[in-house]
């Protein structure tokens, strides 16, 4: 395993004015794994994702994606991002297919005229997430789970090797959640790296290989079972900040 980590954060600090959002985060994600990012509201989950995508510049520390600096990784389309539901305008007059095609823009010329290869990639991605038969629908006319899959399809069409999903299970019913979990596991089996922020601890064992517990810094990074130990959870959720993690 000489491949560089899909995502590597080293001593990342992010501050918004007086508020410290990330306080020395060290994190390395190996390729081909699904990692659950766990923490309470305000623990820095979204900030960590935004920093990994380069939307937030760290005050200190370094970010590397597959060994590249973030700007280079972005222009190569290495990282795909599935935004939180609240961050999307679901009334926007755009079809599912058009959303997925946006994943191809980085592969296209300045006018973004789709080639045959682009169309094929979009069709394939739509098949993969099982939305091919409703591809012409306006994006807001999908159920919560279908919406998430549409954005995952965009990441597939983009051929991103790292996929970041911010709270994908919020407002998604159990059956759609199971479909989404299966899809993410398949993508990891292909060798992609998947980072999912969630506070749905019950789904974690089915979803993820590893868990990261975050409270402005990484409190735990390892197998899911270890993260679900009560003493470990208590630290991340601030019930007892002085509790020691059992060795």
């Amino acid at each position: 395993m000489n491949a560089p980590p899909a995502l590597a954060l080293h001593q990342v600090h992010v501050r918004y004015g007086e508020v410290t959002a990330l306080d020395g985060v060290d994190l390395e994600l190996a390729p081909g794994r699904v990692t659950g990012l766990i923490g309470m509201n305000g623990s820095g989950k979204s900030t960590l994702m935004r920093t990994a995508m380069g939307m937030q510049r760290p005050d200190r520390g370094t970010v590397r994606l597959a060994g590249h600096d973030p700007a280079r990784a972005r222009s190569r389309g290495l990282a795909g991002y599935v935004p939180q539901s609240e961050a999307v305008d679901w009334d926007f007059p755009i079809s599912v297919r058009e959303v997925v095609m946006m994943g191809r823009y980085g592969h296209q010329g300045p006018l973004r005229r789709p080639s045959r290869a682009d169309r094929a990639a979009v069709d394939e991605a739509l098949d993969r997430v099982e939305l091919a038969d409703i591809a012409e629908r306006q994006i807001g006319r999908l159920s919560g789970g279908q919406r998430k899959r549409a954005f995952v399809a965009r990441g597939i069409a983009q051929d991103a090797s790292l996929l970041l999903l911010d709270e994908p299970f919020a407002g998604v019913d159990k059956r759609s959640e199971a479909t989404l979990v299966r899809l993410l596991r398949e993508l990891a089996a292909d060798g992609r790296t998947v980072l999912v922020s969630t506070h749905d601890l019950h789904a974690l064992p089915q979803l993820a290989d590893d868990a990261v517990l975050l409270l402005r810094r990484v409190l735990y990074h390892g197998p899911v079972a270890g993260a679900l130990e009560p003493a470990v959870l208590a630290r991340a959720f601030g019930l007892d900040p002085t509790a020691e993690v059992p060795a």
Partner: protein
Amino acid sequence: MIGLDIGLLDLVLEPLRYDFMVRALVTTVVAAIVCALLSCWLVLIGWSLMGDAVSHAVLPGVVLAYIVGAPFALGAVVFGLGAVALIGLVRGTGRVKEDAAIGIVFTTLFALGLVLISVTPSQTDLGHIIFGNILGISRGDLLQIGVLAALVAAVLLAKRRDLTLYAFDPAHAHAIGLSPRRLGALLLGALALTCVVALQVVGVILVVAMLIIPGATARLLTDRFSRMLVIAPVSAALCAIAGILGSFWLDASSGGLVVLAQGLLFALVLVLGPRGVLAARRRAGGDGIVPARA
């Protein structure tokens, strides 16, 4: 019937026997089309107020350009983008919300424009910039407006997919290595230039109507952005024609009538359109609103 047909034809042809009316008609249609294209993005991003701000803020730029003999477009772009930067600066203090920041900056710049106009001796009445002077458009004005409009329309259409991505999901634009900042600036630059085109037609005060209404009307008629880019300019052009011809026969404000036509069309679509008030009531009265899911 034949008599009526000839009557309708005369209604259109009679005004066109005058050169100034032809120029007015062409200019208004051109301005309406480029405003309508831009409006599709503005209404989706939620930049209506920004359109209002920039269209007012260009006034001192245009007056200063007149004073020093520079092209109006240059003054407009400098002040349009300057206003946006100022708004960002005021909002960035954290104590003033965005709508207040916009309100403060654009009214102050507009006031500066008014003061400059009042102290500037001029051949042409600069007051025309405020209310438009479509019937006084010269051949040179027409040429300038045509060139600017063509330039803006070409850039908007060439970059339409990137601009739509920016409007829909700037985070993804960033994720694939595009610059949301640059795309936003492109849109604002186009906005400033469009204001120059349109303010000679309807004036600074009514420009914002032409920058919002056609896009909003088109949005009511379709769920496809690509179709909005057709519906908005076509409807705006028809309203422009109706407004100019109406102003000839009614001897009323041409800019006012153009905007009034756009507003009436919007109201019509809002009530009678496929997603309009009446249609919603029919659906609710029938078997209820069908939830859209697979």
